[in-house]
């Protein structure tokens, strides 16, 4: 039964997510694409892009969208897919919220616990690797096309480099040229996603 499976899958995703929405990407990918085959890697990438462009916590957006798509792909009607999406969101919220309440109740006693601190610093190291893995997993034909001298691959690499450069630039860049001052502020992820979509439209046609 897909609904029970969905609920327990997102329960697991919620409690093992460290490092926010980005830490969740590799986890959801592993569960939803690799284990359960609820969607393709390309679809998953698109979901993440849309989740970053709409308001609200990215983790909730991804869970809602992924839940909807998974149920739809299992052959249910869109109405059931809405049920699935709500189920996935509730599941993602549930365990971390209970844990937070428990921690707040006993916080004073455990605040300076050495074991907790050691576990946390080990986790913070590993989360860096988990986010890196999320990026590496998405590097492939579904994102970049077939490697070689073709329009798709070259365009994809150019977009990738442009986004890396633009999102690593200083918050505000000011230069004087010909006595006039020009300034460029770092574009937000949503602007970069919209621009990349526009490039796709221009290059691949409509």
């Amino acid at each position: 039964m897909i609904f029970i499976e969905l609920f327990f899958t997102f329960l697991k995703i919620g409690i093992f997510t460290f490092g926010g929405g980005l830490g969740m990407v590799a986890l959801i990918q592993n569960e939803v694409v690799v284990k359960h085959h609820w969607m393709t890697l390309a679809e998953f990438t698109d979901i993440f892009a849309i989740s970053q462009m709409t308001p609200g916590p990215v983790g909730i957006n991804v869970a809602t969208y992924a839940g909807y798509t998974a149920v739809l792909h299992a052959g249910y009607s869109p109405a059931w897919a809405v049920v699935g999406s709500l189920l996935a969101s509730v599941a993602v919220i549930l365990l971390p919220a209970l844990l937070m309440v428990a921690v707040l109740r006993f916080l004073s006693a455990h605040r300076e616990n050495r074991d907790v601190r050691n576990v946390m610093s080990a986790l913070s190291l590993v989360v860096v690797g988990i986010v890196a893995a999320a990026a590496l997993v998405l590097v492939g034909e579904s994102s970049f096309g077939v490697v070689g001298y073709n329009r798709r691959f070259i365009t994809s690499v150019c977009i990738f480099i442009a986004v890396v450069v633009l999102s690593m630039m200083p918050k505000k860049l000011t230069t004087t040229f010909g006595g006039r001052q020009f300034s460029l502020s770092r574009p937000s992820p949503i602007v970069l996603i919209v621009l990349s979509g526009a490039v796709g439209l221009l290059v691949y046609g409509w």
Partner: protein
Amino acid sequence: MLSLFVSFFKIGTFTIGGGYAMIPLMQREIVERRQWLDEKSFMEQISLSQAMPGVFAVNMATAIGYRQKGLWGAVSAVLGAVAVPIVIILLFAVVFNTFRDNVVVEHIFMGIRPAVVALIAVPVFNMARVAHVDWRNCWIPIVAALLIWLFDVSPVWVILAAAACGFIYGRAAE
């Protein structure tokens, strides 16, 4: 209770990009406007919410709701934070699943996908700095990434192994 809902409704609805993009608005609502927390405990709450598993914004809502009004306070703050985002993303899900096979939509996403990879890759370096990754411990994130990427190991096992190792290493170092 209603004010918890309204405040987190604002925070959830008017921030795009999630998590850390929400901090400035949270600060204005929680510290300056409602004065639920002072500056120092707000900062402490942020680091606690980051360290805990789950979605950062939901962790913040749970904690502040619970501190103010107990369990139902937590529930109304979380509902406020996720209500509008869930409705909007559902609309997107319905629309995009309908037009999935549309050639134009596919072309737009062919442009977006490499950008998504870049947007996930770039924060890795910032996170590495915050986590104090250096040449002695850099093998830990590298091994974690390779296990997940090349061998499809679930991040769940990586997290559990790291937690166990951190615990044992800490005890052994004493």
